[in-house]
């Protein structure tokens, strides 16, 4: 990922607008475009991260998520050796809880698009597998990246 954007301040209201983008795409153009947009965009936007994972392995996923979740004050744990497997347990998702705290609508597909489709695309580009179990209402999930 390009370093510049992580040097900037955090404006959490953007999570609510992201939720609206998901709603807009599904309601106006359907599931097929919703999935294609998030999968294709993730492969393009996260190309620098994808290149680092290809070079250095899953330890780059650990670095990436610890940075963004620390920036947004999420509660989480990261386990695994960083080579064959990483397990990322989110106890309190900062995006979900910011939207809850500010009374912002949360689209039903928020976690599916912003976590499942995005990380599936990243894993696929790197030759890894990805799975996630999430409880969107609680803002909790368990994500797993692994090498078959």
């Amino acid at each position, binding site marked *: *990922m390009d370093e*510049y954007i992580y040097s900037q301040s955090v404006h959490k209201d953007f999570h609510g*607008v992201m939720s*609206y983008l998901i709603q807009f795409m599904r309601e106006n153009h359907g599931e097929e475009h919703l999935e294609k947009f998030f999968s*294709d965009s993730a492969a393009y936007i996260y190309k620098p991260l994808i290149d680092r994972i290809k070079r250095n392995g899953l330890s780059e996923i650990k670095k990436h998520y610890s940075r963004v979740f620390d920036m947004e004050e999420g509660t989480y744990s990261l386990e695994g050796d960083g080579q064959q497997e990483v397990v990322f347990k989110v106890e309190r998702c900062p*995006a979900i809880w910011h939207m809850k705290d500010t009374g912002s609508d949360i689209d039903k597909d928020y976690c599916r698009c912003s976590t499942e489709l995005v990380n599936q695309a990243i894993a696929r580009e790197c030759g890894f597998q990805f799975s996630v179990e999430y409880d969107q209402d609680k803002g909790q999930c368990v994500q797993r990246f692994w090498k078959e």
Partner: protein
Amino acid sequence: MISANEFILFYNEMFKYLDSSFGKQDVEKLWSGIRDTYCQRIDRVVGEKGLKGMYEYWAKTLEEEGGRYNITLTDDEFIIDMHYCPSMGKLLNTHVEPYKDYCGHCPALYNDIIEKHGFEVDTYIIDREKAACRMHVRKRQ
């Protein structure tokens, strides 16, 4: 989770995707939808406090978003001189290609809301490649 700092990159990609798949009018439809949902706070503070409400809203938002800017508030004008837009700045400092009318989202989101409360808005894109623009709001005579 797509982080708040990564949001702008997806926002920009959605403009490109909608434009190439469905045309510019679909991008404008998205902007109208955002204006009618997520910009209601601006509508409220401008309706209640006028120019002071604009100052209150953008001073807080731009402080969070970053960038380099000057905000001017007088009895009958509100001006944002954006020397380096935090939103366009993120695009210019990454590998992604900015949407051709990325800067168009700002007037699309804000102008109608401000104008309905008795103001005129002029938006000047000074240099997209330098992320520089100006928004000038005046009380309607």
